[in-house]
C-alpha cells in the first residue's frame, strides 16, 4: 500500500530505517519483526507521530461522551418519563423496545405479523443461498420465481386460481383466518426487501437488453437505447417517483390505474435499468472481438451468440460493479417514503410522528434503522469485494 512515507531520512532511529542504512548490523529477524514495523509505521517520523497522537486525542475527546450517551446514561426500558428526564444526556433506547414492531412491520395488521416476518426470513434465506452457492441461471430463475410467488401470496393473501384452498386447507392448518391484506398496508422491512429484490429482478434483464442495444450496430436500436439511458441517468430518482405516483394515473384511461406500489416498482426499475445498463456495457466492451467472430463462424445466430458466448463472459467481469449498483438500489428504496409508502424509513416516521409521548426520540429511531440498512449494505459490499478477489484469481 503506497509506502510514500518510507523512512529513509533517519530522523528517528527505527529498526526499519537502521536496517535500510546498515544492513549488516541488524539481523534479518529484527528487520522484519512485527512489533518494530508497527512502531515505525505509527511513530516513524515526527509527522507520523504527530498524526498518530492527533487521532488518539480525537478519540479520547469524542468516544467517552458518545459512550456515556449511548450506554451509561441511556434508558433501556420503555418508560417515556425516564426518557424525558435523560433527554440530552442519555439515549432513549426504550423507544425502540416500544415501537419496534411498528417500525419493522409497518401498518401490517397485528394478528398477521407472522406473515410479514415469514416473508422477510424467506427472502433473506433465498438471498443468502444465491450468494453463497454458484448455480445455473435456470435454477436461480425457478427458485426465485417460486419464492417470490410464495411471498406475494403470503403478504397479500390473494390466492388466485387456488382460492378454494383458503377454506379447506390453509385456515385449518394455521388455525386462524388468512385475510387479504391490501398492498397499501404493507410496510417496514419486508417492503424494503421486496421492493429492492423485485426492482433488481425487473431491472437486470432490461439492463442487458439496453446494453445490447447500446452496443449494437443497428442505428435505430442504438439511438433509442442511448437516449433512454442518458435520459434516466440525467434526472433524479425523485422526479421518476413523482412521475410514477402523480403522472401515470393522469395518462392512463379513466378508472384504470394500477396499484401505487406497482407504479413505484416500475419507476425504480426503469431508473435502475439505465444505471445497470452502463455497467453491463462496460463488460460487453471489455470482451475481445474475436469471441463474437468465433461465435459467428460457428454459425450461431445473434441471440445464440449473445446468450451462449458473449453474455456469460461479459457479465462475469462486471458482477462486482452490478452488486455495487444493487446496494445503490437498496438504499434508493428509502426514497419511496417521499411518495407516501411506508417502507423502513416511512414506517419509522409513521410510528413516531403519531405518538406525542415518543415523538421526541426520533434520533434513536433513525439510529435503529441506520443499523439495519448498514448491516445489509455492508455485507453486500463485502460480498462484492470477495467476488472481485475471486474473479481476479480465476482470470
Amino acid at each position: 500500500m503506497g509506502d510514500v512515507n518510507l523512512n529513509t531520512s533517519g530522523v528517528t532511529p527505527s529498526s526499519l530505517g537502521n536496517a535500510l542504512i546498515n544492513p549488516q548490523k541488524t539481523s534479518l529477524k529484527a528487520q522484519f519483526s512485527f512489533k518494530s514495523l508497527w512502531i515505525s509505521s505509527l511513530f516513524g517520523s515526527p509527522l507520523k507521530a504527530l498524526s498518530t497522537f492527533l487521532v488518539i486525542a480525537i478519540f479520547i475527546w469524542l468516544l467517552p461522551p458518545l459512550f456515556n450517551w449511548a450506554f451509561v446514561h441511556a434508558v433501556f426500558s420503555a418508560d417515556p418519563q425516564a426518557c424525558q428526564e435523560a433527554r440530552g444526556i442519555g439515549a432513549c433506547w426504550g423507544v425502540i423496545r416500544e415501537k419496534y414492531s411498528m417500525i419493522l412491520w409497518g401498518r401490517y395488521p397485528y394478528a398477521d405479523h407472522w406473515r410479514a416476518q415469514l416473508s422477510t426470513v424467506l427472502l433473506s434465506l433465498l438471498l443468502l443461498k444465491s450468494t453463497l452457492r454458484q448455480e445455473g441461471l435456470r435454477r436461480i430463475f425457478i427458485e426465485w420465481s417460486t419464492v417470490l410467488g410464495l411471498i406475494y401470496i403470503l403478504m397479500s393473501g390473494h390466492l388466485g386460481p387456488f382460492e378454494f384452498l383458503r377454506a379447506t386447507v390453509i385456515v385449518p392448518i394455521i388455525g386462524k383466518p388468512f385475510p387479504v391484506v391490501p398492498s397499501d398496508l404493507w410496510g417496514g422491512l419486508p417492503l424494503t426487501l421486496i421492493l429492492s429484490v423485485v426492482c433488481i429482478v425487473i431491472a437486470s434483464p432490461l439492463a442487458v437488453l439496453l446494453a445490447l442495444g447500446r452496443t449494437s450496430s443497428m442505428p435505430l436500436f442504438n439511438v433509442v437505447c442511448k437516449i433512454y439511458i442518458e435520459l434516466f441517468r440525467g434526472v433524479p430518482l425523485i422526479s421518476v417517483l413523482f412521475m410514477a405516483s402523480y403522472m401515470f394515473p393522469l395518462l392512463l384511461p379513466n378508472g384504470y390505474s394500477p396499484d401505487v406500489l406497482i407504479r413505484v416498482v416500475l419507476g425504480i426499475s426503469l431508473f435502475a435499468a439505465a444505471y445497470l445498463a452502463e455497467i453491463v456495457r462496460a463488460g460487453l466492451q471489455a470482451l475481445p472481438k474475436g469471441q463474437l467472430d468465433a461465435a459467428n463462424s460457428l454459425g450461431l445466430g445473434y441471440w445464440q451468440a449473445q446468450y451462449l458466448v458473449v453474455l456469460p463472459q461479459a457479465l462475469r467481469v462486471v458482477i462486482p460493479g452490478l452488486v455495487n449498483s444493487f446496494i445503490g438500489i437498496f438504499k434508493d428504496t428509502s426514497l419511496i417514503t417521499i411518495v407516501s409508502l411506508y417502507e423502513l424509513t416511512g414506517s419509522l416516521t409513521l410510528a413516531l410522528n403519531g405518538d406525542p409521548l415518543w415523538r421526541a426520540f426520533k434520533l434513536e429511531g433513525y439510529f435503529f434503522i441506520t443499523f439495519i440498512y448498514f448491516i445489509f449494505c455492508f455485507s453486500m459490499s463485502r460480498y462484492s469485494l470477495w467476488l472481485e478477489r475471486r474473479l481476479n484469481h480465476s482470470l
Partner: protein
Amino acid sequence: MRQRGIQGGFGFILDPAGFDISESWIEFNSDESYAKAFFVGLINTLRVSAASIVTCTFLGLLLGLGRVQSNPLIRFCCHSYTEIFRNIPLLIQLLIWYVLLVEWLPDSQAPLELSLANSNFFLSKDGLAFPWFEIGQSGSFFSTPLFDGTSIQGGAVLTPEFLALYVGLSLYTSAFVGELIRAGYQSIDKGQIEAGLSIGLKPSQITRLIVMPQALKVIIPPLTNQYLNLIKNSSLAVAIGYPDLVNISNTSLNQTGHAIECVLIIMVVYLALSLLISLIMNSYNARVLKRG
C-alpha cells in the same frame, strides 16, 4: 385528460404563486409568478450543490490520501469513515443531521459562539450566523453578527435546512470521492514513487508532483459522475423542507394539479444541468489529457 377537466399547458407558470419561500438569494413574495418561484428553487439547488461539491472534493482528497498512508491508524479511520457513510442511505443521513441541528443545538437565545479576530459565528437552532458583506444604500460593507442577549443582529444566516443538506451531501459524497482518489493513486506504478524517492523528493512532493498529475486522468471521469450524483441527490431536500427546485415543483404541483408540467420542469432542468456539468468536466479532462 380533457374528459377529467384537467387543463394542460404551461400557462399557469405566469400566475401568482401564492406561497412564500423560506430562503432565497433574490427577493421573492407570494404575489410573484410560479416561473420566478421555479427560478428561486433552481438558484437554491445550485447554491447547495456548489458548496457541497467544493467541500466533498476537499474531504474526499483527504480521505483518499489517508487510505494510502503507511500509518495504520489513519488508514483505519479513513476506511471506517468510508464504509459507514457509504452504506447508509443518504435520506436517513439527511434526516439525522436535520434532527441534530433543530433539536440538539441550543436555542437562539443562547447560541454557541465562536469569535475569530473581529468576526463572530453563532450556531443555534435558527442556523449559522456568520460575517458577510451587506449591500446598503451607501455601498457594500462588512457586517459581523452580534448577539445582544436576546437575538442575533447583522451578518448573514444559513438556515438549518441548508446546513443539514450541505453537511449530509458533502459527507456522503466525500466517501465516494475518497474511494476514487484512492483508486487513482493506486493505479500509478509503484516504480514512479520509488523514482521520486530516489531523486530525493519528499513524500508530499511526490504526491503533488508525480502521482496526482497522472492519477487525475483516471480520477476525473468518475469524479464527474459523482458531482452529477450530488446534484441529483440534492433533490432529497424535499424531505427536510429546503426550498430547492424539486420542493417548489412539488408545492406547485399540489397547488395547481399540473402534475405533468411540474415533473417535466424538474426533469428538463436536471437534464440541462447534467449536460452542462458534463461539458465543463469533459473540457477540463481534455486539458488534463493534453498536458499529460
